[in-house]
């Protein structure tokens, strides 16, 4: 009986939901699971929209663009959520997106402000290498120091073709080193224990002791402190400054529910959505509301400066940097 009741409840909601419109949102896998922002966002949006919110995980972050292209104009998606500014211009260039036509809230807290006809941001963070101070008492303090560090200072990173953190690191190295980026990757390659498809595979490899550091975010230590009471995880702050990730959402041109999709994007920048971000996605919310961020966020290290390629420059930089990265890393 115990297993039957939830099933019956599910049937009942499904029946009640029949006459409501459904908004389909494609996002990355970890967003939709019970432990990501998905469930709470669904509950809060459905409470106000009179609709059913269908969150669909379409792989790791950088795969969303491929999925959108694969489905083309026949996509079921009304909203694509999870592309960062390294990918937004390429996505807009497919012609598969519609302009959102919404004002950007005055309270927007994304570094550098926001102005884009297709995309609105929902959270942001700085990429960083995360280490365990009990295993690595003296972390590198710059890219230069990382290149010269003892060879047992190993790292685990993500593939820039599948993962937005992996892409972010590639862009970070390019932004800092420009023409020298290929040579920098050649020097980094020996300490790269493995290149994973998604963020979690890399991070769990680090937690399991497979590497000294994993590419993640400056906000990652807040998870360990807040949830596990573990203060030993830290982000290595680099003198050269840290590359930003700004995660965004956009409406598809094929959407059958463009008004509902616009409502979702507007909702995305309100308190019910934004307050869920810090402790479910472990990022800085795009609009800050009092009390949303746990105390552990206060203790986080802040980079000396931010780096970011403008969205419109990113596609060309990404293509060249990817060819360079692949060439070095496949040797």
């Amino acid at each position: 009986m115990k297993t039957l009741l939830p099933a019956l409840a599910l049937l009942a909601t499904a029946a009640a939901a029949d006459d409501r419109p459904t908004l389909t949102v494609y996002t990355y896998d970890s967003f939709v699971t019970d432990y990501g922002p998905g469930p709470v966002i669904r509950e809060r949006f459905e409470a106000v929209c009179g609709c059913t919110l269908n969150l669909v995980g379409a792989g790791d972050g950088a795969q969303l663009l491929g999925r959108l292209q694969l489905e083309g104009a026949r996509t079921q998606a009304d909203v694509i959520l999870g592309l960062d500014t390294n990918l937004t211009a390429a996505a807009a260039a497919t012609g598969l997106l519609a302009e959102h036509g919404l004002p950007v809230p005055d309270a927007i807290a994304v570094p550098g402000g926001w102005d884009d006809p297709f995309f609105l941001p929902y959270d942001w963070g700085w990429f960083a290498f995360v280490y365990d101070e009990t295993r690595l008492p003296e972390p590198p303090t710059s890219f230069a120091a990382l290149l010269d560090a003892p060879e047992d200072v190993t790292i685990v990173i993500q593939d820039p073709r599948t993962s937005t953190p992996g892409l972010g690191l590639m862009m970070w190295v390019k932004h800092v080193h420009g023409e020298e980026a290929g040579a920098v990757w050649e020097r980094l390659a020996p300490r790269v224990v493995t290149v994973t498809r998604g963020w979690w595979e890399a991070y769990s490899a680090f937690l399991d002791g497979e590497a000294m550091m994993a590419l993640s975010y400056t906000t990652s230590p807040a998870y360990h402190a807040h949830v596990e009471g573990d203060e030993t995880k830290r982000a290595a702050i680099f003198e050269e400054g840290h590359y930003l990730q700004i995660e965004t959402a956009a409406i598809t041109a094929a959407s059958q529910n463009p008004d509902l999709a616009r409502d979702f994007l507007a909702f995305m920048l309100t308190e019910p959505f934004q307050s869920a971000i810090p402790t479910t996605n472990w990022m800085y919310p795009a609009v800050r509301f009092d009390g949303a961020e746990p105390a552990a966020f206060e203790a986080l290290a802040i980079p000396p400066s931010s780096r970011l390629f403008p969205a419109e420059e990113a596609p060309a930089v990404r293509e060249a940097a990817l060819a360079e990265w692949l060439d070095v890393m496949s040797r």
Partner: protein
Amino acid sequence: MARRDEPVTEALPRRVALTGGAALVLLLALTLGSVAVVALRAERAGALGPADWRALSFTLRQAFWSAALSTAFAIPLARALARRRFPGRAALTTLLGAPFLLPSIIAILGVIAVWGRSGWVSEALMAAGLARLNVYGMPGVLIAHVFFNLPLATRLMLQAYAAVPPERWRIAAQLGVEGRALFRLLEWPAIRAAAPGAFALVFSICATSFAIALALGGGPRATTLEVAIYEAAAVSFDLDRAARLAAVQFAVCAAAALAALALAAPPAAGFGVRLCVERWDGRGRAARAADALALALAILFLALPLAGVAARGVAGLGALTGAAGAAVWAAAGRSLAVALGSTLLTALLALPLAALVAALDRRPFAARLAEAGALTPLAASPFVIGVALFVVLRPVADPAALALPLTALVNAAMATPFAVRILAPAIRDAEADHGRLADSLGLSGWTRTRAVHVGRLRAPLGFALGLAAALSAGDLGVIALFSRPDAPTLPLLMHLLAGSRNVDAAFGAAFVLTGLAFALFLGFDRLGRGR
């Protein structure tokens, strides 16, 4: 009804030709057809880039070494298992099926638990003052591939040993033939018949390696063609490149399969009833020591990664409460449905195909062509099939809504080569042993099938369908492409749980998934063996 004076075996029975032909056409449509669909959808032609050539080179090198090591280690192991009777031997033979059935996503966890930088071997090396292992790259890929394929190669060789008529062992013992002479006279011909097939099968499996190469390859420097195809098709939406790489992969695997078919000696079949084989050889101290060593090393190599996953999996079961628990059981139900559907489809594809291959015995070229056709899924990329189905179905249906049936179909296609490979020799042997008798009695149709084949096919069919069910239950590949996170299969849910930091629940799900895959295999295998 066949005329008495015209043996049925000379002409291809109509029923066999029709059903076998239909299965072959469907299989070729799924494999070769999907490359064509993707190539047609592609917009521009181009050449292979430097990274593609490196992927080809790595694919060939790792597949060669994986096949060579698996086949070489299988010889002493099969020899020991074939001639020793000891308590737990039946359990060990069953355990040999375990790694191959293990979902690769779980086996990877096990390999890392034992061979990883903080695994048991590294800890032991550290304690001995040596350096830790770095499992990523070629070593990790080879360890995982041998872990998966050594048992497969061993089971294929054990089948070859079982095909040696038991009377011959007795005659050899009566004549005092022992050791090297016995190996040369009886064992080597059996191994010689099975080894090229085993080598080529392992080569083909490893040449299309995906999850292992992705997880243990350590990035682009150890990328297989299949990983490159996945990246091109599912990640970069570069269908041109996916089609080009799929064609290259087909060529590589087709060449491997053809070479194997050419190398394989005719099955060492003999007339005789298969009772439990008694052996009189190998009583010497050196032979006993060699067998004990082979068995001990194999058990350690195969059981430690399983133990590593089981230890964390049991601990993770505690996390399967509330929402996570309900999700895991619902996903297990879906995986069970997919696996059973896929098993049924495998039977529908493999039985007619195996019958066709066996019936073409008198026409070696046609038989090999049919067998090569049945093996095409080994060379095909599930991702290319998936993308092709996606492209074809998109205008008429929502592929995501059909995710589970499509997954079952693709899984069945991928399992069919194994099933045909297992079933065809059994049908051929049954035909060779009893076919003429059946013909002389004028049996045909279902009566003939029942008299000649049913009893002899039961065990191999149970084994083959057990494999198909377990492979399908553990498959992550294609479902990830159609991706229905609101209704995931168990491997996909495990991937999602692991991706959302719920590691304990992920390991708990891994434990349930392993149990499901093994239960499916054991259920079918036991049905087949009549226990």
